[in-house]
């Protein structure tokens, strides 16, 4: 039960067999000189409605209608299967009509956003676990503010003379870093360049500090590490939380376009040659 869908060889085999059956059925149906697009289109629309049903299942968590994990596995399976149906439906050609082209693009964005979400949901949990403290997403701004307040108080404490090194260093290199989420793209790309740069700047500053300032700098370094870890958690949690806001609205628009497309086809086209 705990196995992910495509870790299961049987599921892959089922996908391949069903895909082959769909392709074979389509070819057989074509022998009758009927328009296969009508059949593939109808099946595709039913599949799209079933895929959208997963969102409804999530809302009805109190009902005994199967575990959400089972629904998700079915959702992924069916989603991938629609790509076979879609290719058969468009006969491997890019549509030339404007509306059909928009529909084509809409499907592709829904499909690829779904695949992206599937991959992200497998990759991001592991990355979140690998670095930083586990923090609830909504509380990250609060933690960030607390770190910033602590840094500011450390800087204030070390501001004993007119030309204090630490306050100057803070103003020049750290203020923007602590003010909000930073280096998102670098975190996504797993780059630690920004930390190396800051680390080099800190090392370069050390010869000019007295022992008390060195102690403060050490504490600042710890806060830099904490803040950077928090940024890392923030960016990955944000990606996984925001991803459905791309996939779900696109799905709804796809269903609306597909229904309009079906109505238009039914009104203006015949079902057989």
């Amino acid at each position, binding site marked *: 039960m705990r196995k992910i869908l495509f870790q299961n060889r049987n599921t892959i085999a089922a996908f391949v067999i069903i895909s082959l059956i769909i392709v074979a059925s389509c070819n057989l149906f074509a022998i009758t000189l009927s328009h296969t697009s009508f059949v593939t289109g109808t099946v595709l629309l039913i599949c799209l409605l079933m895929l959208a049903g997963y969102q409804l299942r999530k809302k009805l*968590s109190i009902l005994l209608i199967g575990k959400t994990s089972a629904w998700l596995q079915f959702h992924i399976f069916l989603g991938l299967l629609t790509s076979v149906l879609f290719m058969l439906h468009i006969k491997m050609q890019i549509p030339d009509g404007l509306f059909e082209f928009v529909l084509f693009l809409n499907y592709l964005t829904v499909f690829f956003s779904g695949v992206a979400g599937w991959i992200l949901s497998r990759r991001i*949990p592991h990355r979140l*676990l690998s670095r930083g403290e586990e923090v609830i997403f909504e509380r990250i701004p609060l933690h960030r503010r607390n770190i910033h307040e602590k840094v500011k108080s450390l800087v204030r404490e070390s501001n004993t003379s007119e030309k204090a090194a630490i306050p100057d260093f803070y103003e020049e290199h750290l203020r923007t870093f602590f003010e909000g989420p930073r280096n998102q793209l670098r975190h996504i790309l797993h780059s630690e360049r920004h930390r190396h740069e800051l680390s080099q700047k800190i090392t370069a500053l050390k010869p000019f500090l007295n022992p008390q300032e060195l102690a403060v700098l050490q504490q600042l370094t710890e806060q830099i590490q904490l803040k950077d870890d928090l940024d890392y958690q923030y960016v990955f949690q944000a990606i996984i939380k925001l991803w459905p806001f791309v996939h779900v609205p696109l799905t709804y628009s796809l269903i609306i376009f597909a229904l309009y497309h079906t109505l238009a086809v039914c009104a203006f086209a015949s079902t057989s040659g």
Partner: protein
Amino acid sequence: MTDEMVESLLKAPPFSKIDPSGFKRSLPLRDILKNDVRIIGFDEGDIIVRRGDWGNSAFFILSGNMRVELERKQTSLPDEILGRRTSRVKTFWESLTQLWHNNTEPEVREIAAVSSSKATFHSRNTHGGTRIYLQEVSAVLDKYRTARLEPGQWFGEVAALGRTSRVATVFSEGVSQLLEIRWQGIRDILRYDKEGSLKQYIEDVFRERALSAFLRTDPLFQACQPELMQRIVEQVEFHTFGNYDSHQPFKQLLEDQNHKTDGREPVIIREGDYPSGIVMIRSGLARISQRHYNGQRTIGYLSPGQIFGLDEIQAEVKGLTPVACNAQLSAIGHLNAVLVPTALVEEILVQNSQSKSSDSQKKKKNVRPTGSQSVKLNDDILLSQLVDRHYVQGTSLMVIDLDRCTRCDDCVRACATTHDNNPRFIRHGPILNQYMIPNSCLHCVDPICMIECPTGAIFRDLAQGDIIINEQTCIGCAQCASNCPFNAIRMVDIRDAKGALIVDSQTQAPLTQATKCDLCIDQRGGPACERACPHDALFRVDMHDATKVEEAFSP
């Protein structure tokens, strides 16, 4: 208790039979009676203890008669008249209508439910407190099988000392007067009474009423001949380890980041010692550890009903030479155990092997071949953390595998939808390896939250074993919340259907009630959080089921 009352108690049995000279000067018998004992009166039908409740006091009948319920299951007194919440699973339609019937405000209660005006049980204010009572005692006596307890008899002492649930419901037949003694008082009397009459009485009662049935819960004793079982019952030794108030030091321990407990745990059997018998756990939990450099490494733990030392005795029977224990057994918190002497265990093994050879295939299923049946994990560090943090108490421990969890919070939302728009857990907690243990009720095997509940509102559902709170009888005293070492019980302000806070009619203070995870006892299909997780990251583990623990925590 006044000095006059103490004087009169000391002149009458059972205290007149106790030799006061054995007691310490700083803690004489007189002071124990003064501080740990009270006399309480009951009217006809008043319920004194209920089957399944946890209690920390025993009772001695001074005057009047008590009735103890004898039946179990179907024919026992129904939960409704005992003031218990009856668990009813919602229908499909009721579950569905929750979607639009749920109030927008959290924790909305029906005023009638809080004020008990619609309750099926009867309660009254009498003898300085609110009591639940049976309305027509004569009808109850006609309908249900009961036995009479008369003046001079004790009851409730086994549950109080063993920290186990009450095994029967007791109610007053007519007007009666009882002496209630806290467990601390019984413990001190047992310790300093030279004659040991009370200790003997308690042990005899347990031997007579429950020991045989308790031993037969283990496959080793199931095929035991009646004559041998009789001798075992007579010769078994009772042992208690650890501090009864162990949850209090544990709460402090949680604040200590080092989590060093094993050094302070009382040792039951040391590694390298020759076992004088097998130890069978009655209540509490025990740690199995082995020497590792200069410390102890946890390799397993035992739950109630599990045994230790059988491997060594089996090896001794086979090799005919004594075999020393290769691990140490120590008590985690408060523990009650029975020790079955080696000679008797050897007899059982011989008897089982004979019956096995005569009917090998059939008996193979009944007699466990080897092992102390402990819960073990391949990852020693993870196991040690689970034991040190007392998560092994859980019969339904919520675990989130962070390697799979996308932090989507669907579990929290599902919990809120099921429970008055207020989730009963927080998706935050300690992380052990890749497993997060969220802030949620564990449904402990030893539920200390239940010990001091004045109305018995928090109770273990006898059918399913879950710890649940009865909203009708919860008075919001917060005793359970302060006792829970995992901070899994939260006090919430309750509201009426319009969303306004329900306040006390006299003080105008907002009324609060305790809330916690109830494993969605009234929902079809069990916990909503578990069913709502799209990645199977959230699951629950019974920490006393060795197979499930191993399966759950295998990477």
